């Protein structure tokens, strides 16, 4: 367990899935949480409120902020809301992602711009806006949630190259932000059964037949995130930890359908 008592954490894309599990884990370790979802209304807001309620049930403060990370002004507004609602920021978990599942010939220009705007520029906007708050509190940690698509080809997964770029970006940040007391690392998660898995299993029907050992749970990704946010990980800098139950080790023995 990481001691995150008194810390304030912002988890993007945390109304459900991996982000929600991370928010709850950081709360369990003592942090107050800003839940962040893209849309302001409708069911996703309801999911965000539900996640915030779950954080409060753990005895921590929680607020919901919204905004498209692809838009710098909306990121700025979300960070301002965190400052106002929680009084600062120590931990930034860059978990939000948005991407079409398509092979390259089918990608429209607007798909490509959305991919880059959200999954590359968006994270940079988040860090740029969060940094002053982190500095005010003497530093903090950034954790980026990547996926195996950064290094292995997944079918119809243009998000993979964005994840690869971000793993390099994290290395950059670790060096650039060290003197500000801000650390940066990434987690490269294996197969996780979340909403995007629902699309993936359609494109890649073999997935449905994989044994349970091939999958990582959102909670397991959250455990490693909490570790990277805590003091025990102080010597890990600019790294990407692969959290996949060894799936990527098995080039010659991929888990097969039984």
């Amino acid at each position: 367990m990481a001691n995150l008592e008194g810390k304030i954490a912002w988890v993007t894309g945390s109304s459900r899935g991996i982000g929600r599990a991370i928010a709850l884990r950081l709360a369990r370790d003592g942090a107050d949480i800003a839940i962040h979802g893209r849309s302001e209304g409708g069911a996703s807001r309801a999911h965000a409120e539900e996640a915030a309620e779950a954080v409060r049930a753990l005895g921590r403060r929680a607020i919901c902020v919204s905004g498209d990370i692809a838009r710098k002004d909306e990121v700025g507004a979300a960070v301002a809301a965190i400052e106002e609602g929680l009084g600062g920021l120590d931990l930034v978990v860059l978990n939000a992602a948005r991407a079409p599942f398509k092979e390259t010939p089918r990608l429209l220009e607007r798909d490509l711009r959305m991919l880059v705007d959200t999954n590359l520029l968006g994270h940079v906007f988040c860090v740029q806006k969060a940094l002053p708050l982190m500095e005010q509190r003497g530093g903090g940690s950034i954790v980026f949630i990547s996926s195996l698509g950064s290094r292995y080809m997944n079918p119809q997964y243009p998000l993979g190259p964005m994840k690869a770029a971000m793993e390099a970006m994290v290395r950059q940040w670790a060096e650039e932000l060290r003197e500000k007391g801000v650390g940066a690392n990434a987690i490269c998660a294996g197969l996780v059964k979340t909403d995007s898995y629902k699309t993936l299993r359609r494109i890649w029907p073999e997935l449905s037949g994989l044994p349970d050992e091939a999958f990582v749970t959102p909670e397991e990704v959250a455990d490693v995130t909490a570790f990277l946010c805590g003091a025990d990980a102080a010597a890990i800098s600019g790294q990407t930890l692969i959290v996949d139950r060894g799936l990527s080790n098995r080039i010659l023995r991929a888990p097969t359908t039984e």
Partner: protein
Amino acid sequence: MANPHVTRERIDQEVRAALATTLRIEADTIEMEQSIINDLGATSIDFLDINFRLEQVFGIQLASQLLLDHVEEELGEGTAIDRDNKITAGAAALLKEQFGPDAPIDAGMYADEIPAFVTAGSIATAVEKILDHLADACTCGASEWKSEDGAKVVCGACGAEAVYPDGDELTKGWIHDVQREKQLFAVS
């Protein structure tokens, strides 16, 4: 060529069940003309779950993306959605073919507003259109389709499940048919 083994009532019932499970609401409170997004509170991600459940029940593959995305892939970027993310006149006309002539859809609307036109009924129609493509005969040669549960159709001779054309393929084919007939889209 309707599918004699699966009734529209059964399809409606399964759509209600899929919506109820996904959105955690009561199935018998759902009206077929309700907007999935505006009235039932679904998000775009919920569509994946709703479709997945229906695909499992009926043994089909529904279209994996919105109609206008298919148009742009088939006929070219900009044909359905302009640079300001607004729909073109051709797109509005095509959407009326899909959602009915009375649907309040006009050129210049934001593309993001379109998913709100998806209703329980329009999902059921999408399922029905695929099921209507039941082949005359199974690949084994027999024409003895039957269904025990009123949802999955199997071959009475070899027991294989009926294979239907994929929703994406049907949608693409339909787009090209409409374009040939009505020339809704200016294709350069």
